[in-house]
């Protein structure tokens, strides 16, 4: 018991600081790299401004256009389900809110635990579905790299350990909680160096896309 307690304290203490530091510095470097590159001045007469269309695309791209939805419903729906499930578990589970409050002072109401546990179970199933899809769909198989599977494994581990901790399915409890925290920390550490960066950069990408099309008079 004492070993697992020490492990838990380590994940909550020094390891947490290390993870946050790598995450913050790595992400800062990544975003700086993007903005330092910038864009060349555009001399073509614009039909419309860039900011409005850019901001609109930042939000509208979250929903697939009807044609794409019809052609790839599985991809779209499963992607949605697990992203929403992950975000709900991350942001609306009481202990997570307590952690955020201790770090930032901000807090909000939580969802009842049974709801979160249901959401988490659905997320796990959806994640497995994305893995099967990645391994079987010809396009996804072809474009997938080791990184895709690594990132999948880490995200899955975060959700799975959280679920195991909630149901206290592993003994001793500090061990499974520590594993949950550690996997979340690994995810944070990997974030700036893998496709997980999209959590932040997708909004920059979408803005650039919306701006480029927008100045030509098309809402993309």
């Amino acid at each position, binding site marked *: 018991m004492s070993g697992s307690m020490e492990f838990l304290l380590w994940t909550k203490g020094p390891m947490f600081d290390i993870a946050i530091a790598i995450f913050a510095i790595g992400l800062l*470097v*990544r975003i700086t*790299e*993007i*903005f*330092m*590159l*910038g*864009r*060349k001045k*555009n*001399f*073509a*007469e614009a*039909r419309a401004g860039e900011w409005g269309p850019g901001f609109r*695309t*930042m939000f509208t*791209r*979250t929903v*697939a*256009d009807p*044609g*794409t939805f019809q*052609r*790839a419903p599985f*991809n*779209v729906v499963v*992607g949605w389900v697990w992203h929403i499930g992950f975000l709900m578990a991350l942001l609306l589970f009481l202990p997570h809110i307590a952690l955020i409050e201790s770090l930032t002072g901000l807090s909000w109401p939580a969802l009842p635990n049974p709801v979160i546990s249901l959401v988490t179970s659905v997320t796990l199933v959806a994640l497995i579905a994305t893995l099967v899809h*990645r391994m079987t*769909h*010809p*396009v*996804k*198989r*072809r*474009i*997938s*790299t080791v990184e*895709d599977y690594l990132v999948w494994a880490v995200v899955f581990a975060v959700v799975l350990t959280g679920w195991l901790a909630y149901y206290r399915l592993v003994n001793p409890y500090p061990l499974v909680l520590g594993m949950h925290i550690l996997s979340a920390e690994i995810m944070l550490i990997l974030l*700036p*160096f893998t*496709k997980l*960066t*999209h959590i932040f*950069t*997708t909004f*920059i*990408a*979408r*803005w*650039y*896309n*919306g701006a*480029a*099309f927008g100045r*030509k*008079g*098309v*809402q*993309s």
Partner: protein
Amino acid sequence: MSELTLERGLAAFRAEVDGPVAAFFSSCVHCGICAQACPFYLETGDAKYTPILKLEPLRRVWENDFTLWGKIKGLFGLNHKVTDEMLAEWEELLYDSCSMCGRCSMVCPVGNDLALMIRKSREGMVQAGHAPEGLIAASVRAIQTGSPMGLQWKTLAVQIQHVQTSSGLEVPVDKEGAEYLVLLSSMEIINFPEYLEAITKIFDHAGVTWTLSTQCFEATNAGIQIGNKDIAAQLVERVVAAAEKLKVPKVISPECGHAFTAIRWEGPNLIGRPYPFRVFHIIEVLDELRAAGRIKTEGMETDRLSMHDPCNLARKSGVIQQQRNLMNLVAENFVELKEHGKFQWCCGAGGGVSSNERAEPLKMAAFKRKKAQIEEVNPERMVTMCATCRTQLEEGLEEFNMEIPVVGLTEMIAEHLVEKN
């Protein structure tokens, strides 16, 4: 041209990496949705035609040279380099199987503008010596003769004569101070001479002053299709010089989608300064004249018509409503294809695919998407406003034994003009 090498190619790839490119590659989650937008993947079912995969050379250059993480990986020899063999393999992916239709850029959930990156990648391919023969030949002809098809003014002069005889109207040439300088595309001059007669009639009807220029009549830009900024800039400068010499405030790009994006959106950036004139697609001009009440038409087409939006005109240039206004002016039985406007499907021939002979089978494969769309609404005729699209639709429909004639919108408007007395 001095020797084309991998080093030059890599330098050209590097020169294309900017903030958007870095944001796009940082964001890709390998979801594969972009494949669902690409007619070349959808109609062949071959996963190598997935849009994001076509960009792997540019992605590697970005990762290796523009990210701290990539540089660290490089120190340990863990990075993937771009090799000459790789670029040779990618030539088919970046040219033969991409019409730069921009549809993938509309659907990527993280917002990647893939078509923009294809355009950028081609700059690197040219410098590395991996551009298709057909496009190289077109570029050389464009520089040497002014036309990618090697067409000379004397051919056009003969056509002008015909138009003048059959319409009884003057086709103005080198008229200083006209409102519009009219550009044409060689494809149009050869395949669709009706266009020149149509605008001659419409402009006479509407009282518009216009002119052709003996100095420069070609609107298309082979330099952009192949991906060579120097050639592209030279071709743009010719248009600018002609327009400046004739002191026109406005330039009209013909029924050609590519020519329009080339001169309208890329041109000023290629020469590094804004134009002293404004650029319009003929359809924009016609719709303006319509709105101002300067086009009076009579009679309506009564058969079932549908319309193909050229990618370059609709999705990539925002000209979507104008052609519909014009259709409604002269067609009473107009049905839209299901996905149209900014979400239309490419005919398969754009982006230099049609000038690249060896891409013929892929071009016809990609057309099947359009064919399926047309079959869905089963029109008696198709209308479009791009000579390349029109040629492709005609050839494709013939290939599949579908008897659906294709007409140009400008011509159709000209046929309904109220006779002057």
